[in-house]
Every structure is written in C-alpha cells, then in structure tokens.
C-alpha cells in the first residue's frame, strides 16, 4: 500500500487526478461550510446575474447562487457516482466471481443474462429503467447501477479466469482449501487491480450518464443541484448568461478528467505487465 502510494506520487498524471478527486470530495463533504447560501435559495430579484462579490459564480434563472449550487452539486454528483457504481460493482463482483469460478452451466446462465443487458444500449436501458421506476435520485442511481453491472461482471469474470491460470490457485486447490476461501482469499484480492481501475472509470461514466439522463429530464430531480441538472437547465441561457453553464461544466469536466487521469495511471501502476 505504502509502496503503491510512492509509485502514485511518482506518476504526476495520476497524482493530479488523485489530488483533484480529493479536492472534490472535500468540497462535497464541507459543502455546508463552503457554500454561502442554501443551494435552492432563490433571490428572485437577482435572476441571471453575472459573477459578483455577492454571487461568486453569478446566479441562475431562478436567482440561485451558482457557486453554492456547484459546491452542493459536488455532493449530489459524487453521491450518484459512488452509489450507482457501488451497485454495479457489487453486483458485478458477485456475478463475475460466481461465473468465473464455477464456469460451466452457472457461468453460461449468468453470462447469457449479462449478454441480454449488454445488448441494450446504455442510455436506452437507463432511460427505460428510470421510466419504469419513476425519476428520482435513488432511481437514477439504481438505473445506472444496473446498466454498469454487465461491464463489471465481464471484467471480474475475465480477471478471475486469468487469476485461475496462476499456479498459486492450483496450489490452493491442491492443499484442499475450501472453494469459498479460494474465492475470498485467493481470487478476490488478486482481481482488485483491474476492478479498482474500472471503478474509477465507471465513476466518471456514472456522472456523465446522470448528466445525460438530466438532459432528458430523467435524472436528479430539482431543486437538487447535480451538475448534470445545472448543465441542462443552463443550456437555454448559455448565450444570455454564459456563467450559468461555465461553472458546472468546468466542475464536471475537471472531476471526470481527474477520475480518468487517476484510473488511467492506476491501470499502468497496477498492471503487472507494465511494471518495470
């Protein structure tokens, strides 16, 4: 772990990503402290005002402080990302482990079901699920989680299969270790590298998917300020009041960039093939 951080520090790209994400998390956690106003407080006399000392990033069409909303948006967007990816990753881990370890018929059944979900285009699947469940923060997260499950399942499954190629696994079988322990102690820790990389990338994917759902009006519900919601609302006013789009867009772009940079360099750092 320590060694890992040392290597992370030596990789500037990854470090930038890591620090960036840390900042976003801090902002999200400290949102009530940082934000000068409540994110849904409306100053109806001050709609669509440019940045000023009172409103650092200006105000939106309903006279709300964009700075406060961007700060709280970090909370909402991160929450969406974490929980959605949490759902997808956990389900994927379980299915993938079962599928990759036991193979045979179980594997066939799980993978065919995943194929079915995989065959649905992401956005359309999310859209349909949200349409069924009704749009809300929770349902958005569930929908994105379901959409991500097949990807994680496939990844975990193939990682399990490649771990199974290692002799330490044959060795564990030869020693007589119980299948459950083989999965938990020998396989799971060794598939974590690609799994974690996928998680960082999926996090950015989840935030973007939420934004896309917001564009279609099916994402996080107002007045909750997810960046996707802000972005979509401000599209109409972009020309009239560019700051309404500038700040949420910057927030989303930088955050996703950081997740990607981190994931990218984790991939290099954790990939034994690229170790020098």
């Amino acid at each position, binding site marked *: 772990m320590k060694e890992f951080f040392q290597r992370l520090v030596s990789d500037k790209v990854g470090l930038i990503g890591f620090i960036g994400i840390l900042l976003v998390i801090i902002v999200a956690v400290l949102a009530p402290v940082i934000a000068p106003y409540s994110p849904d407080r409306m100053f109806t006399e001050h709609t669509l005002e440019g940045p000023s000392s009172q409103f650092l990033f200006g105000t939106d069409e309903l006279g709300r402080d964009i700075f406060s909303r961007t700060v709280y948006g970090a909370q909402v967007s991160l929450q969406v990302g974490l929980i959605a990816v949490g759902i997808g990753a956990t389900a994927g881990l379980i299915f993938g482990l079962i599928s990759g370890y036991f193979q045979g018929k179980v594997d066939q059944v799980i993978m065919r079901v995943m194929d079915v979900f995989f065959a649905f285009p992401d956005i359309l699947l999310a859209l349909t699920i949200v349409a069924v469940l009704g749009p809300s923060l929770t349902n958005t997260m569930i929908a994105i989680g379901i959409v991500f499950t097949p990807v994680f399942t496939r990844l975990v499954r193939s990682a399990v299969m490649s771990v199974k190629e*290692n*002799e*330490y696994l*044959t*060795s*564990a*079988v*030869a*020693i*007589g*270790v*119980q299948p459950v*322990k083989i999965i938990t*102690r*020998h396989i799971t*820790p*060794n598939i974590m590298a690609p799994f974690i990389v996928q998680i960082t990338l999926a996090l950015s994917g989840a935030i973007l998917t939420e934004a896309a759902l917001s564009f279609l009006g099916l994402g996080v519900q107002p007045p909750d300020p997810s960046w996707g919601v802000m972005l979509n609302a401000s599209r109409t006013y972009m020309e009239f009041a560019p700051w309404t789009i500038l700040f949420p867009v910057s927030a989303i772009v930088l955050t996703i960039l950081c997740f990607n940079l981190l994931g990218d360099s984790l991939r290099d750092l954790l990939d034994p093939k690229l170790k020098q």
Partner: protein
Amino acid sequence: MADTAYAIEVKNLKKYFPIKGGVLKKTIGNVKAVDDITFNVKRNETLSLVGESGCGKSTTGRTILKLYEPTSGEIFLNGQKISDIPRGKFRRMRKDIQMIFQDPFSSLNPRMTVRSLLLEPLLTHKLASRKEANELVGEMIEKVGLSKEQLDRYPHEFSGGQRQRISIARALIVKPKVVILDEAVSALDVSIQSQILNLLIKLQEEFELTYVFISHDLNVVQHLSDRVGVMYLGQMMELGETKDIYNNPLHPYTRALLSAIPSLDPYEKKERIILHGDVPDPSNPPSGCPFRLRCPKAHDRCAEEKPRFLEKEKNHWVACHLFDE
C-alpha cells in the same frame, strides 16, 4: 487388489483432453496427454518422471492429485482407490498428498504473507488450533532454512530460491505422505538449485516422504531418484532403477535423451545421438510406436503395432519392439 506397500499405484491411467469443434461444440477429437500408463511408487521412494515438454509427465502428476479427473484407469493412494472419489470429497484427503510447483513466482499468492500462506493448510484441514498452528509455522519455516522474522513478509520480497523454500514449507506443513514435485527446481539457478535439492533430500528422510519428481533435467533426476520413468507422447517408454536407466538405457529414446545432455567434462568423449524432427502433435500421434518417426532404429513393425510395456530385465521395463522378440 491394491498393495499397501505402495504409496501410489497407477493402473492404465488415461487422461484425454477433448478437442471441441463444429457448430454445437461437440468433441471432435482428443489430445491424449496421458495414454495408458501403469506404474507404482513405493513408500519413501523417489520416482522421477522424465521426458520432453508435452510428454504428459505433468498431466500424470496432476491427475494423481485429482486436479484433473482421469479419463480412465485407477489411482490408489496408500492402498485406497482415489480415482473414483468425487473431487469435493477428496478435498479432505489432500493433506496426505501435496504438490510443489515449478514457478516460484506464480505459485504463491502475492497478496498473502508467508505466515498466512503457511497457516492456511493447517487451518483448512483443522490440524491445529490457531495458537499451535502458529508455533508449527515457526518450526516449519526454520526447517526450510528461513527465519521466523521473515514470516510477515510478502512473497515478492523473497528471491526465487527462498520462495521455493516457502512452497516446500507450505506443502510439508500438513505432514503429507506423498509429495508431487512438478519441475520443482527447474526455474532456479545452479547454485540455488543444489541448495533446494539438498533440502528436499533432507526433508524426505525426516518426514519419511514419498516423492514423485517430475523433471526434464536428467542430471537432477539422476541425483535424486530411486527409479526413473521415461515418458514420450503420453506413454511410458522405459521404467527402471536409476542406475539401470542411466548406465544401461534400453529404449532408443532414452539413449538419445541421455546423449543429448551437454557434458561437463572437457575430456569426455561422448557418442551424440542427434534426433531429427520434433515431437509429434499429441492430438494426432503416429500409429504404432509413438517414437518411430524420430527413432534411428525404427522398422516396419513399429508403424503397425504398438510395442508392449515389458519387464525386460528385473525391475526394468521398456516399451520397444527391439526388446520384444
């Protein structure tokens, strides 16, 4: 039927790997990795299986260990027939038969400390309480020439030789009766190899172990084994006492193999038999004797008839038409 004097008996063992093909993935052929071999290993004996890559020696070892299900034939462990015990049930018997692998870098789980690697077999088979187990681990690590201080390190902090010591400790800590060593020293440098070989011999005496030693290194095999079986294309070509095999090889393949070892004596004159061509594809072996395509002494009969495996001299078996008149 089984003789309890033998630690292991293998009778007419076959292990075929199916080749799938066609629209419905039906089996369209077989790779005959192990094709009807019979041998036994006495208690406290070291039997080596030698041969070139693809000859089926590893598959034999792994099938004995029930890492593969045999296609047919019988395997006995200490007189008990294990070939038809389901794998799940066999799990508990695994403490009697252990395995040491070739690659010291991939045979230890990189995410586990040496301590947990050694504890695992004990706890799995409930051979000791956690406290006792910890003591046993300490004893064992010292027996293989490492120190207790090294227990909390991870495998990557060790050199190849040290890792192989850890693997040995892990295999032996459950006090098995039989150990299958699959190319256990092949990946090591000469100076380290001899350390490990010494250790293996020492431990064999101490724990009264039976070894099945699988290797392609004929020098090492000569040093370690009581008896040697020479395999080619899934079949046993010759089996006998080590000294008989090395001093009086009967099978043309064994002779070629032994002559191919580079000599270490600059003054030694050696008759070198250079074999031509490569080992045939095991999914499509030649008719009759599997070695006939490369055999300098092949004749018509070799193509027509598979040679029988006969005891040509006392305890010296060979499968070759030259010795079957």
